[in-house]
């Protein structure tokens, strides 16, 4: 069953001269109970899409339905089922993480006892215990973000919009948040996530879309996106070889003092021999989602580095 369906969705923002088109006839459907990631450069249209779908912004044309209700005509019917982690949001200045979670649940209509229990569960799950009673102005940026994410995930809303939820978090905190997001999906929530961390998209999402200039360029799994490169292997050389040596075997780009070659499995044997011969240090790995993403959005890997 579809949780979200966008049909010919467009959004123009007013600007001097002529309007700027942020979304251009986007069609997208998301299944209920799944985690979907939106990838794209800054200004690609991800947040605009989320804001329209979450009833925060009116579209210029097209429609979005959430659980069968039109978000423009029937916002009051869909809002109880939604919650959002806003992009670059920050928590209330004076409240502690525990107060944030509990008060937001109470505001949304949770019973007092249930709010208390869910607050304690979320404080523990998000690793907020040692800071749970500190006012947010004393917390680091990462902990403030964790607080904001915790208060939204605690709602167990059927549809969760997470706009860059782990921004500014350390790798440990990100993994804790990932686990709580996975738990929300296991419990039946549908999640629409935007992120610039491609490993996060890969770790969390069952499906993703790449958006650029208001158009959806790709929709599918992370694995399938990687396969669009038609090169499975990533070789990294330090010293001994030149760009000209590698160029016939695939796509080459410089990464600081190293050369990276995206190539096929068949080419690895010959290139290993070349590296041994030239005394070059070579590492082998799979191509990354980031490389596929850069290729797809048409910026070219060379330019991207």
């Amino acid at each position, binding site marked *: 069953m579809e949780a979200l369906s966008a049909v010919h969705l467009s959004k123009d923002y007013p600007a001097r001269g002529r309007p700027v088109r942020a979304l251009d006839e986007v069609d997208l459907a998301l299944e209920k109970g799944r985690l979907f990631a939106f990838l794209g450069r800054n200004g690609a249209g991800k947040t605009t899409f989320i804001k329209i779908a*979450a009833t925060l912004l009116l579209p210029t044309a097209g429609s979005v339905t959430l659980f069968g209700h039109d978000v423009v005509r029937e916002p009051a019917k869909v809002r109880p089922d939604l919650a959002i982690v*806003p992009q670059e949001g*920050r928590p*209330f200045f004076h409240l502690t993480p525990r107060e944030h979670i509990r008060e937001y649940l*109470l*505001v949304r*209509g949770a019973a007092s006892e249930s709010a208390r229990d869910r607050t304690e569960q979320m404080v523990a799950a998000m690793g907020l215990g040692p800071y749970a009673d500190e006012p947010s102005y004393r917390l680091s940026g990462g902990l403030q973000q964790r607080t904001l994410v915790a208060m939204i995930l605690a709602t167990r809303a059927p549809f969760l919009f997470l706009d860059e939820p782990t921004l500014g978090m350390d790798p440990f905190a990100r993994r804790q948040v990932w686990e709580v997001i996975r738990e929300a999906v296991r419990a039946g929530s549908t999640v629409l996530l935007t992120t610039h961390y491609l490993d996060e998209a890969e770790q969390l999402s069952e499906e993703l879309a790449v958006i650029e200039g208001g158009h959806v360029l790709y929709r599918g799994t992370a694995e399938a996106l990687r396969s669009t490169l038609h090169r499975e292997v990533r070789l990294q050389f330090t010293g001994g070889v030149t760009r000209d040596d590698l160029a016939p075997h695939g796509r080459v780009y410089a990464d600081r003092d190293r050369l990276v070659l995206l190539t096929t499995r068949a080419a690895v044997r010959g290139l290993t021999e070349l590296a041994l011969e030239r005394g070059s240090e070579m590492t082998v790995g799979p191509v990354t989602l980031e490389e596929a993403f850069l290729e797809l959005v048409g910026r070219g890997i060379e330019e991207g580095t």
Partner: protein
Amino acid sequence: MSLALQARAAARICYFNGIIPLWRQPLLMGAVFLTPFSFLFFLYVIAQRAELPFGILGGVLFTVLFTGNGMLNDCAYLRLERQLQQIFVVSPVRPLAYVLGMALSELAFALPALVLFLGILATVHPFGLGALALLAGVIVLTWLMATTLGFLISTFFRQLREIWPIGTLVFSSLSVLPPLFYPIAAIPAGWRWVAFLAPSTFAGQLADYAVGLPAAGGFSPPALGSPWFDLAGLVGSTFLFALAAMFLSRWREP
């Protein structure tokens, strides 16, 4: 969400946006009290002592009107700087519950200063319980008028820096220029009607009437001097601002 739950949502917003910050940073109370008290102090020093009750009542109404400025700044700050209005829009909370909760939290900030001003007034110019009830009515209507206006304005701006001067301009015009700190008799009789262009004048006149301060004669037309006219003006302005906030404010971005 039922009406009762919406009311509870408003009460919770008041609790965490008004009472908790006051509890953790009591200095906020002083900030609310300081400006009207400064006006009062200068009035006391330079004006006739007989006009002191007008100044104290002015302090009461200034404090209430500036809940609108607080509302404007708080709502804009939560929406633009912290992106927190979004979490209330994308929730079962209705706009009315959010606005009421925010307005109640502004009232919570103003309450200590109001009690203090009313205490000073009772000492300088004793008044009865009936007058207190009337005054409470004026305060509630003025609070509703100011906070709905504050919320309405807050939704139209995209940058916090644009809002700061607007709030000061609007709410200073409503609270300093009209006859709140001074008797309307101080305005030449032929020009008194001008004062009623500011809806806060209705509140000022009604408050003067409530505590039995001498009303000025010589209104033209004479109906301008009637408390019923003031009541109709205050109720009408409050209703108008509430309607404007309901239909013109931007809960969702265009």
